[in-house]
């Protein structure tokens, strides 16, 4: 009984913590995206509202909350309304296993990485639901593209992660961090890191892989028919997803919370936001790939490279 109460309390505290983190992270990332893009594009726009534009995201959020939620007439209502929720909930669950520091982890389970990848794969279902139920051809095309893209990029992502798991011998995220006590994996597995960051960018639907929304082609892709807060939830999920893939990259390749002087959690966050910065940097530099090129790139380049990397890793481990 006591155990159940303690667990219940722990769950509530964790949930509040995660929701807090998700909101603050989204607010911060929207601000950060504006600043990064403005610096890359040499424009002074995001300096207007508050100190260095700090209040802009709050103004944006208020605007989105104030907007009318329009439901087009011929949508498949239940699926249409469920899609944003299905998009967002799995992302929340992924926070369960992320080790922010040796002490700060909600559940340090032994299949942590599998859990993140499994729940990460659910977002494609949400995109498909949104695109299908919207009864809009642009949305439908976006959804179909999304499915093909996610299937294509999840495979190299998992194979790449496998080579790290071979080295650590565990799916538990804290074990993977422990394995990097001497040298970070990015130095041992530079190719894997590049593959991972490429696939992760595609998984989060960020440019140059933002094919499902492809603004200049499909208007807004799968979320064309979503307005106000419903749109904001898709947006929130995208930013939270970015946080998660970057956190996984930090754990797999950058030694997790390890670092001198500063507390572990600070190191962890620094590394995560550095990864996010790199993903943002991509977005403001590259043009968008064409759909078939995107798929070809995954099947003909990324997957073979990921397999080669896995084989070499396995061989080296066997020999040593």
């Amino acid at each position, binding site marked *: 009984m006591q155990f159940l109460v303690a667990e219940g309390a722990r769950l509530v505290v964790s949930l509040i913590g995660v929701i807090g983190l998700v909101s603050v992270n989204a607010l911060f990332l929207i601000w950060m995206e504006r600043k990064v893009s403005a610096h890359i*594009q040499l*424009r002074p726009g995001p300096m207007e509202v508050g100190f260095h534009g700090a209040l802009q995201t709050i103004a944006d959020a208020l605007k989105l909350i104030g907007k009318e939620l329009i439901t087009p007439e011929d949508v498949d209502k239940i699926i249409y309304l469920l899609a944003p929720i299905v998009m967002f909930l799995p992302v929340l669950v992924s926070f369960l296993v992320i080790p922010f520091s040796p002490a700060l982890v909600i559940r340090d389970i032994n299949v942590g990485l599998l859990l993140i990848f499994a729940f990460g794969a659910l977002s494609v279902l949400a995109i498909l639901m949104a695109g299908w139920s919207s009864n809009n051809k642009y949305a439908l095309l976006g959804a179909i593209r999304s499915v093909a893209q996610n299937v294509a990029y999840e495979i190299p992502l998992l194979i790449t992660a496998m080579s790290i798991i071979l080295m650590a011998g565990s799916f538990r995220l804290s074990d993977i961090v422990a394995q990097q006590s001497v040298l970070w994996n990015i130095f041992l597995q530079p190719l894997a890191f590049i593959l991972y960051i490429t696939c992760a960018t595609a998984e989060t639907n960020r440019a140059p892989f933002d094919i499902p929304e492809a603004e200049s082609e*499909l208007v807004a892709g799968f979320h064309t028919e979503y307005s106000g807060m419903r749109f904001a939830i898709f947006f929130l999920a995208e930013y939270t997803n970015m946080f998660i893939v970057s956190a996984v990259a930090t754990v797999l390749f950058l030694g997790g919370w390890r670092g001198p002087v500063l507390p572990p959690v600070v190191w962890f966050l620094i590394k995560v936001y550095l990864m996010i910065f790199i993903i943002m940097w991509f977005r*403001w*530099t590259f043009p*968008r*790939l064409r759909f078939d090129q995107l798929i070809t790139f995954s099947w003909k380049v990324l997957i073979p490279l990921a397999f080669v990397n896995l084989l070499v890793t396995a061989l080296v481990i066997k020999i040593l």
Partner: protein
Amino acid sequence: MMLEKGVEEKTFYLNLGPQHPSTHGVLRIVLEMDGEFIINSDPVIGYGHRAHEKMAELRTYQQYLPNMGRVDYLHALAYNQCYCMAVEKLAGITPPERAEFIRVITSELNRLSSHLLWFGAYLMDLGAFTPFLYCFDDREQILDLLDRLTGSRLTYCFYRFGGVPVDIDDEFTAGCRAFIQRLRSRWDDYDDLVTKNVIFIHRTRDVGILTPELALKYGVTGPNLRGSGIAYDIRRSEPFSAYPLFDFEIPTGERGDIMDRYLVRLREMEQSLRIIEQALDKIPNGPIMAEKVPKRLKPAEGEVYTAVETARGEFGCYIVSKGDVKPYRIKLRVPCFSNLSILPELIKNTMVADAVAILGSIDLVIPEIDR
């Protein structure tokens, strides 16, 4: 107007436009799609029709002049110039040489601003936002220069029958030279960011190939034609204004794909810089208006056709006069109408993303088609 229906059950129709981020105006293209592939397409025009040609019949020659800047708002000065040339030819007015030089300088600046806007907007069609703002940064310098001289920033109406109303001064000249230097120093940035970008190359090489035969068949002009390897430029083939006095090249492509059209425009910008530089060096002193241009223009009976090279191709102005203060009939030959007509041939059997890329590479200005 619509495509034939019910030919194949598996196809569906997709309306690209009239409100779409990539049509850059109110153009609608009905696409018959098989999944991501385009089986057929049908451009639908007329959403922005203003009856420019009819308006000419209801106004005097001077009153109609501001309309020319609205036909193509991106290279307004060339349209001004063409109309002025036509009326001058009709009325027997010869502008002084200094005026012709000023026309060349300002028109080339305007061509640069048009190409820069195309450059940026095109990269946005391909999903890259940053080059767009870099180009706008450069374009802003031109707009400031022309703003100071002409008083407007987009729909210029600067030329008059017989010359130009305002002379250029030292500050304008210095500004032009500074701009030339600035833009030349930017080519490396653009090359690194765009021309050498592997994604950009993959999106544009061997996509939307326009063969020289097809281009000639449809009357395509401008950078689109030159991208297919035909060095046809009105500035050379039928020299007008002060252009024969300058030394410049006509860049051409080899394959006629999007990349070639892009490179042609890029090199054309360099040539424009050369022309401006030479014009600034050689500009003669003297008046900027012809003497004794009547306030109330009443050209003799007759007809006249003049053509200029705009940023998008050959623009021609055909005027029939019955000796009245108003033209009897005006016909505008606009480049984009012919350029748009090749679109269905080019986007057949490509994907939606390609269609957007090809549409952008033709560089359409819709009010010109819907005049």
